[in-house]
């Protein structure tokens, strides 16, 4: 990708495998700072693994990953994970209320989130304040994802990783989450890397797109590339023939 912006995250010939099973092969490229980059590609392409390499839930076996021009290994894991937040696909919650989930990131540091700050966060992600004391088991899929994103924002991450957070949502919730992501990006200038299966979403929301297949990045560029890809495999994927 010819990046006109400073990279928030840069991959340099990164390989990753589970045992003898290669997942990522020679990944090289950058995610521009302050922009929304979508990761698209068929299931099993290595997208989630790539995301987990960005916040240190996994480590590359070879190659380098740079976060804000610093090699990832030079960060303390805890520092890195607060700098690069991730909202996981299944939006896991700890048992209890929405507030207990929102205060969790600070509780892990021996602090707590004030109720006012929690209400502001709820407002930011478009949830009613009445939800603060509701049990998370009573939330809808869309509300759960919003709480998950809000919880990730508590650490004020500079980079936000989103792993297929809209895959199981209805159309209304999906639109709300899309608007929320754009809002977060605009309001906090957060760099966003977003895995999605929805190519229309990638086109509409993403500034940039990486297309991944079989553990490799096969095409990158501004999201418009999805309208007219160069790579034959990407062409087939965009036509829905390579899922």
């Amino acid at each position, binding site marked *: 990708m010819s990046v006109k912006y400073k990279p928030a995250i840069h991959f340099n010939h990164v390989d990753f495998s589970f045992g003898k099973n290669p997942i990522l092969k020679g990944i090289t490229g950058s995610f521009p700072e302050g922009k929304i980059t979508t990761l698209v590609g068929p299931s099993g392409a290595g997208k989630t693994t790539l995301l987990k390499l960005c916040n240190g839930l996994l480590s590359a076996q070879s190659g380098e990953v740079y976060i804000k021009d610093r090699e990832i290994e030079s960060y303390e894991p805890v520092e890195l994970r607060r700098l690069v937040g991730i909202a*996981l696909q299944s939006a*896991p919650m*700890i048992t209890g209320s929405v507030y207990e989930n929102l205060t969790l990131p600070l509780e*892990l540091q021996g602090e707590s989130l004030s109720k006012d700050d929690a209400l502001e966060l709820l407002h930011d992600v478009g949830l009613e304040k009445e939800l603060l004391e509701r049990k998370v088991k009573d939330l809808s899929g869309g509300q759960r994802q919003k709480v998950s994103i809000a919880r990730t924002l508590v*650490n004020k991450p500079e980079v936000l990783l989103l792993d297929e957070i809209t895959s199981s949502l209805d159309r209304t919730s999906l639109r709300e989450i899309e608007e929320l992501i754009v809002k977060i990006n605009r309001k906090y200038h957060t760099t966003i890397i977003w895995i999605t299966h929805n190519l229309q979403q990638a086109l509409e929301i993403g500034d940039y797109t990486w297309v991944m297949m079989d553990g490799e990045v096969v095409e990158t560029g501004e999201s418009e590339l999805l309208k007219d890809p160069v790579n034959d495999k990407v062409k087939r994927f965009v036509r829905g023939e390579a899922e």
Partner: protein
Amino acid sequence: MSYLTLSITLIFVLIPLILSKTLKLGLEKDTIIATLRSIVQLLAVGYVLKFVFDSDSLLYIFMMVGLMVVAATHNAQKKGAAIQGITTKVAVTLISVEVLTQSILLGFNITPATAQYIIPISGMVIGNSMVLSILFLNRFTAEVESQQDQTELILSLGGTPKQAIHRQLITSIKASMIPTIESQKTVGLVQLPGMMSGQIIAGADPIQAVQFQLLIMFLLLTTAAVTSVMLGFLSYPTLFNQRMQLIKDK
């Protein structure tokens, strides 16, 4: 009891054998093997114990206890194969529990420092510690597997491995301790403990038998708590690497 009288008790083996044959349960072979093994194993242990008691040698006591630890470790470690270095961790736990309990018993002069007391009590402590280890490891490995999302969530939010595994660890420790606590709640109401019954049958004063049984039960509470907690805190760090990542099966 004479060997003739003992042989008459084989009637109690004949009853399940006849039932199994009649109802085609297919348990005849297993019943016979179990009977033969218990006869051989218990008689062998009986003669070994008689030899050790007669010799009253500290070396033989150590050897007997050592053998118990080895056998219990071998049995318990199978349930924690997914945990790195589990054999050492189980062995360290069993030895620690044994040393702790015997130190209190002998240090406070609660029981005499003779083979007759040390070996049977060690057997109960190590045996219970082994069962507790199995219960804990079973539950803990299942919890870690089923709660991977939760563990990853805490790590992803900047939590430490200890914070990430805390809930699963506590759940597993509690789950493994509950049977010991629950069985003690109903003791005397539902069942008379085997050791106490044995003492009474052998002619001991029931009150003294009860006192001794209480000692053993309190001992087993400590055994349960120390085994679960110690094995838990020895096990969880091996689930993570130095970069605070959950090590997954490859």
